């Protein structure tokens, strides 16, 4: 599904991704862990095409997409829920969804896809005429999820979906993520998280990043039980 081969990325002269190699299979749920500023967000931005890879290769569904612009990657089924949600604050909830639907729909009926999103997030339906900026943090996260969901992605990437949310809201966000996965066995999920316990509970495998490199990888169980690793990189 997704393969990265020694991918490097830079901010100016600062190397933020250092020879990243990873492989995610179709239908897997993978988490990327590590403290702040270690390149996790940059990694997702590089995969979706917002940040160029200076060297290395990114393959998606067997195709080399390293040079593709972001809009082409999204059309082919890669969708990112960005860090901090980034809803369009002065557009209505529904328009937020329609912007996302518009880049991928290819003439499919937008009404149907709206209803699919509303059936998973009934709160959004009730607030569909409201400005997105007036929603609570949790609702905005649901909208950000809905925006990606309406694109019917094959690869869904979430950047810190629990950031800045109360524990009870975090719980409902992950409930929604599980709901999205139900009946979509083909959907591949890559989640960046700082909340290690929540992340590993909801993923089958994980990678740990430190200073732009992958320093550890394994199944959720292996990572959970590796006390040295937890102490050194994850601070739990």
């Amino acid at each position: 599904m997704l393969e990265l081969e020694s991918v490097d990325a830079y901010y100016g002269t600062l190397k933020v991704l250092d020879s990243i190699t990873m492989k995610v299979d179709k239908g897997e749920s993978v988490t990327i862990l590590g403290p702040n500023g270690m390149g996790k967000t940059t990694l997702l931005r590089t995969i979706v095409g917002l940040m160029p890879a200076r060297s290395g290769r990114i393959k998606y569904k067997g195709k080399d997409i390293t040079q593709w612009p972001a809009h082409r990657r999204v059309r082919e089924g890669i969708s990112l829920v960005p860090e901090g949600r980034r809803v369009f604050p002065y557009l209505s909830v529904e328009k937020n969804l329609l912007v996302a639907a518009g880049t991928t729909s290819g003439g499919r009926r937008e009404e149907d896809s709206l209803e699919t999103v509303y059936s998973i997030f009934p709160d959004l339906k009730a607030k569909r005429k409201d400005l997105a900026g007036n929603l609570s943090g949790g609702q905005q996260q649901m909208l950000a999820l809905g925006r990606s969901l309406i694109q019917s992605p094959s690869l869904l990437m979430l950047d810190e979906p629990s950031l800045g949310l109360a524990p009870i809201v975090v719980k409902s966000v992950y409930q929604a993520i599980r709901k999205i996965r139900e009946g979509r066995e083909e959907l591949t999920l890559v989640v960046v998280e700082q909340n290690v316990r929540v992340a590993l509970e909801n993923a089958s495998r994980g990678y740990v990043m430190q200073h732009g490199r992958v320093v550890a990888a394994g199944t959720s169980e292996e990572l959970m039980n590796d006390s040295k690793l937890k102490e050194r990189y994850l601070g739990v």
Partner: protein
Amino acid sequence: MLRLGENAYWAMGLVLLPAAAYVAVPEYFSVVILMYYYAALGSAWNILGGRTGQLSFGNSAFLAVGAYTSTLLFLDYHVSPWVGMWVGGALAAVTSLLLGLTSLRLKGPFFVMSSFAFVQVVQLLLAHFTNITNGNVGLVLPLTDSLADMESGNPLFYGYLIAGILLLAVSVNYAISKSKTGYFLSAIREDEDAAKALGVNTARYKALAFVTSAFLTALIGTFYAQYLLFITPTATASIPLSIQIAIIAIVGGRELWAPVLGGIMLEGFAFLVETLFPAIPGLNFAVYAVLLMAVIILSPSGVYKYVREHI
């Protein structure tokens, strides 16, 4: 009973006003024409500056492209301005596309500065190539009063010519606002990076907004040339005019009729100030400044929205 919406009232008002003014206050008819002229410029600007959020102070350069193209085609090749105005529009579209390829990569203040530079460059080019443009002396169009030459002895003709262009600019704004393109443009304005992450081809849609805005502005340029029958580089490709266009749209707002309200209002104020204080030239710019500050403090999203919400 036929129920009319706001759009119908505006359109009807704009169509009736020139005739009414012509009958009632013919000595002030030129004020109506100027109101429409600025409203049209604001409406064309709104596509790029309002909807897409790319603050441009360069639109008067496209006014110059339109005015000079149709005028030179008429003077040198006897091409009617009715044809020349579309050629000018096309040329402005191509120019803005080439400029946009580079300048639209700039963000915030850097884009603003590039737009200032562009106006200055166009003005200098027009002033420099005297063998073609007659330099700073300007070009004079012959007075023919022939409709075939887009001229008439009856001022109503110019009133309806600019009303037609204004309604075209508003219609284009309307079509955009109802389309997928409109959603994408507002997403770019709100959060360009997030729009890109959702798969909006931001470079393409920004260029589309730029080209459309430039095209419409160039059409207004031909009107300007035909109305005054005299154009110069400094009267067309001018930084003060560019700022004025942006102020009209910022004071008005970015809703469909907001720049129209802004244009009518600002020209109305300018006319009042000039009539009441004829001895102080340039006072209208001070009035603009005060209005702009008042709007920013009282209703940052424009006068139109304020009026809709409070009256």
